[in-house]
């Protein structure tokens, strides 16, 4: 008996994988049905549905990058403290002294890449007309994922707390000040006043809600940290689950009729 066979014959192995190795047709079917991770996939699929020249694999790549970001992000969280005192120094240390500080590089480049791949995925889905019935609603979920991907990247941009970070976020969030009705420099905000008191001031408008302060400061750092590390990823994970579920329910990857 070879070592491989010995291992695959052990009770331990069999308790994990409840069937023989997927060498024959039957077990190749069974593996797809019994493995938690693989059950995202159907058992069999049309050739075009997995042709790289058709799907460009961009949805898959985006998902993989999301996983990479989650993993490297968790590792970074062990190290990084979102306070004015520590944020910058922790990033500095990641660069100069920390073992595996390269996680920051991978996390940042992965984030850039994810933004690009999600656009390309949308581009391909459009170009194959895959948003047409019955997949309309999955396209809508996709657009939400697109926004959330951008917001993930945006909130993460602040965390290094260097000049690049706070000014990019300042420029970006200044827009919120001009939100119609809800920003204190937005059209219509003046109308929202009761008995001479303005409801919308620079301490109560949309921008304040976003920043937790009148300017990009420690409250903002905290807010963005939580959005970036907890709130948005949770929503994205949920939406991705629905997205994948619907790809299956809508009949798999789109095909010519």
């Amino acid at each position: 008996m070879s070592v491989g066979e010995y291992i695959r014959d052990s009770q331990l192995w069999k308790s994990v994988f409840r069937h023989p190795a997927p060498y024959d047709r039957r077990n190749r079917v069974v593996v797809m049905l019994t493995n938690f991770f693989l059950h995202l996939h159907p058992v069999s699929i049309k050739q075009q549905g997995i042709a790289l020249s058709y799907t460009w694999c961009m949805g898959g790549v985006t998902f993989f990058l999301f996983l990479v970001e989650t993993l490297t992000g968790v590792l970074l969280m062990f190290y990084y403290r979102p306070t004015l005192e520590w944020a910058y120094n922790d990033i500095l240390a990641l660069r100069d002294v920390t073992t595996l500080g390269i996680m920051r590089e991978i996390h940042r480049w992965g984030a850039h890449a994810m933004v690009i791949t999600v656009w390309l995925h949308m581009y391909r889905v459009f170009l194959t007309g895959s948003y047409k019935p019955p997949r309309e609603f999955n396209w809508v979920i996709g657009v939400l994922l697109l926004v959330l991907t951008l917001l993930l990247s945006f909130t993460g941009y602040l965390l290094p707390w260097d000049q690049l970070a706070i000014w990019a976020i300042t420029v970006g969030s200044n827009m919120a000040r001009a939100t119609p009705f809800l920003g204190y420099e937005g059209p219509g905000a003046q109308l929202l006043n009761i008995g001479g008191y303005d409801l919308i001031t620079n301490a109560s408008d949309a921008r304040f809600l976003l920043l937790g302060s009148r300017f990009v400061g420690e409250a903002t750092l905290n807010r963005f940290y939580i959005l970036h590390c907890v709130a948005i990823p949770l929503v994205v994970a949920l939406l991705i689950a629905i997205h994948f579920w619907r790809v299956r329910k809508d009949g798999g990857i789109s095909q010519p009729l």
Partner: protein
Amino acid sequence: MVNPHPDLTTSVIHGLGWAYLALFLMNLVWTIRVYRGHTEFRSPELFGGMMIPSATPWAVYSIILFLLSLVHLITNAAPDTFMLVMPEFAKNFIDGFADPTIFFALSVGLMAAVIYFRETLVKPTVAWTILNMMLLFTTFSLTDYDFRQIVGKPDNVPIVSMLYIVAFFTWLYFSRAVENDKRKAEGRPLFEQEKNEKILVWPDLVYTELICMIALTVILVVWGVVLQAPLEEPASAAKTPNPSKAPWYFLGLQEMLVYYDPWLAGVVFPSVILGGLMAIPYIDFNKLGNGYYTFKDRAFSVSVFMFGFLPLWVAMIILGTFLRGPNWNFFGIYEFWDVHKLEVLNNVNLSEYFWIKFLNRGLPTAADIPNFISANVPALVTPVVILLREWLGILLTLLYLGVAPMVMVYIPKFKEFFFRMGFVRYMVFTNLLLMMLALPLKMVLRWSISLKYIVAIPEWFFNI
């Protein structure tokens, strides 16, 4: 004295040597591929009109690249005497085009040309030639100090790659679409319908995925080792950098700020973009082109989407990243980012055009409105003055969004849309389309008649 901004240094020359070597290897593979194809072409009569294997010009080109690479790699010349640099006149010539007008016109023209010449463009030889030209241009441009500064910034590297990647996938799309359109015209089955058996996910898909994941991991690790993530000075609220740029993927929106106020460029238009994207499946009633690549079956929708994605989104990001410098001034790709560069701005509002230039009087004031208003409802004075002052712009805006869709019904294509979509959907669709065109429209108005605002009500932060 040492030049602090040298166009060439020894390490740059060596780097370029490796780049040319990579180009040489790429073209070597290509030459072999062409050679295996055993094709020939007839040379021009001038050269005797004989049959030449198609691989010959590629072989010659590859050899030149190899020699170029050798020259760069083994040179001992002092960097400032090295001859292979982008000449000043070429830089000045290219920088001479550095203007938002030309940039935008070029990017729209390029997209139109790609669509129009798609059948030529998808030929592998043509595409390969264009790719080579793009790569040569980028590589050769790296001999300029300022170009290197901006393109080589670690955060900008993905944006440069995005340019190539988007170009590649657009090409891939057209090559499949042209193929399918031809098949359809000839009554043959679509590309996607051939070889479309059901196969097992294990092994075919799971192994593809595994290989993709490994390849991506390698790419990310190598990328992380080669390029260090940027970290600038600690944040300081007192030192505003110039230019202050939003994260790169929002630079298209930041560019809109040149033409529209924040409430539009930063809030309304982004919401409209997202709402519009979500609305696409409910607007596009065309049942054709679902699940296969085609251009002919959906020429209109593909063209509109590409217009939004390529010139209005990707090209605007490129513009914002590489061509907008201090004070958001426009700079050529080889131009030094001079903080003191002056651009004269004297833009004029539509109301000023109307009252001052056309009617030759001042803007309306409280004195211009009937007495009974100020006597009875003084609170109305300001609004009435504003409405009087801005009536033309307000009217034009309402006409643009409300009445133009009805006029467009006279275009045959839109007439069909109207009847197929019904009133509400048609209005949503045309309004989205008109809002998309609002940016180019305002650009043209700005460049041609220096128009600042169509409706200017700074009192209410309401400028259009």
